[in-house]
């Protein structure tokens, strides 16, 4: 079945997922790498041309070898030293990893890059692109042979919920018995939805934001009904934020 995530289930029973990078993102990364290869080859070529005074034959030979080595070796060297990333992949925040979650081995890097000659055929990454689109894990032929996949790099920073609620007064907190009832009645999915809406609210369009929080507040009111005086002057968004505060910070510092 086609999916945009790689699910790894470990022998210890831990389950975690990685989001797979699609063909368009990967093609853009390749375009950046291609520009980098052209630039590096050009710099080497200019540098080598200084030796033309001594031996023009040597310069032409060195250019031929240099272009070949840069073309073949660029991705191999960077993916090895940057743990699965090239310049293009770094810019687009993607990374090559082993398809089963193991450490990426140098031999896998070599194979996936050597097989690029087939993926590039007949032009503009056609075979690789088709393979990527048809493969359940967005793998080009080189990835299939090397047993690798390309994933989005996840944010490394642990979020700080304290920042979401700092400097705000929660009038619902004075109704401890209703807060306890809310925590008992609400499902994890409903709580998760409310939390996600709060953490991602800045990304929403103004009208969508109003609409979303109106619907969420309406639904949350149906679970537990707080007294009118506690809700006075409170917008739907403030109401949802206060509910999330009650759920995720039962005892604030």
């Amino acid at each position, binding site marked *: 079945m086609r999916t945009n995530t790689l699910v*790894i289930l*470990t022998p*210890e029973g*831990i*389950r*975690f*997922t990685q989001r797979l990078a699609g063909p368009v993102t990967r093609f853009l990364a390749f375009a950046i790498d291609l520009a980098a290869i052209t630039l590096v080859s050009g710099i080497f070529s200019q540098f080598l041309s200084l030796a033309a005074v001594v*031996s023009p*034959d040597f310069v*032409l*030979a*060195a250019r*031929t*070898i240099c272009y*070949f080595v840069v073309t*073949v070796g660029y991705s191999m060297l960077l993916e090895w030293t940057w*743990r699965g990333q090239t310049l293009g992949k770094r810019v687009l925040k993607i990374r090559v*990893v*082993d*398809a*089963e*979650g*193991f*450490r*990426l*081995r*140098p*031999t896998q890097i*070599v*194979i996936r890059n*050597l*097989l690029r*000659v*087939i993926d590039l055929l007949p032009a503009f990454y056609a075979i690789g692109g088709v393979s990527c689109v048809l493969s359940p894990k967005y793998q080009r*032929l*080189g990835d*299939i*042979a*090397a*047993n690798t996949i390309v994933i989005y790099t*996840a*944010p*490394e920073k*642990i*979020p*700080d*919920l*304290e920042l979401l609620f700092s400097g705000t007064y929660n009038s619902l907190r004075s109704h401890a018995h209703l807060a306890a009832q809310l*925590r008992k009645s609400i499902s*994890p999915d409903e*709580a998760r939805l409310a*939390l*996600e809406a709060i*953490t991602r609210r800045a990304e929403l369009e103004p009208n969508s934001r109003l609409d979303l929080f109106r619907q969420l507040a309406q639904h949350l009111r149906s679970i537990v009904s707080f007294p009118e005086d506690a809700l006075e002057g409170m917008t739907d968004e403030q109401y949802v934020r206060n509910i999330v505060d009650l*759920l*995720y*910070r*039962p*005892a*604030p510092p």
Partner: protein
Amino acid sequence: MIVDLQQFIERERSIWEELDKVLTRIENQPIPLMTLEEVQRLHYLYERTGAGLMKISTFAAEPNLVRSLESLLTRAYAELQTGSSRNDNLSLRRWLFRTFPQTFRRHCRFFWMALLLTILGAFFGGAAVIFDPDAKVAIAPFPNLLQNPAERVKEEESKTNPMLATSKSRFSAMLITNNTKISILALALGVTWGIGTLILLFYNGVVLGAVIFDYVRAGQSVFLMGWLLPHGVIEIPAILIAGQAGLLLGQALIGWNSKENLAQRLRSVTGSLVILISGAALLLIWAGLVEAFFSQYHEPTLPYPFKIVFGLFEFAALLTFLMFAGRKAVPKFSGI
């Protein structure tokens, strides 16, 4: 029940930060080596973080937190599940004189297959030229091979080649890169379940056979041997080794007589593929240098018997290297 997320983060943060620190240190080592205590600590941090992820995934998921923990766990899992040893240290000498010939011999049935395909192609190419002289136009990859062999030999032996005299290095570089590209293609075509590699090897054989039969029929066998042997005895086996790698990849994809799944089969051959193609590339560098600086000189500059003996000597050396290098000495039976 919803977990107190903020309190949970405060409690577990030090564990996650320690795990991140340990992983960063390991990842920055080219060959990660850890003591038993360090491995045990890493495993503890990994399990604790995994338990934390399961807890928040069940009761309260904050997307960024989940992704951060998943990222940490992915890295930790990779390090814990992939062992390493001091044997991972690279030694060029050991690689060249043990690893490469041993790998070649371990998968030599694919080499024989590649050789057989090339020989079949050679006979096909020879037959095509003998029975249909016009076929030469379709088969010959270079214009100078279209010439009448006798005329070409006369021309080669009479001229002093000014182009060659001033561009030997460039010619050599061009040969090395071109042959290496063909070798990479022979390997890469293995991804078509080996069919592409078989076709490439057969086609190479057709070209080779057409040239050989054309020159032999014209009575130019000595020139042909003097011209082809010095570089061909290295270049042709190198292409065959690349073909061997392509067929090995094809077999891993097909999985005949194997109980392993595709990922396991590919995992078990990737090391051999890289060793074989690297060995082929090394041989092609030598072949390219010999072709540019030696093979292109003919009589009277270089006598053919000397070139032929040189080629045969190279062939014997290569054969000895591939067949015997890296073999363990068998201990003599000393009796009781």
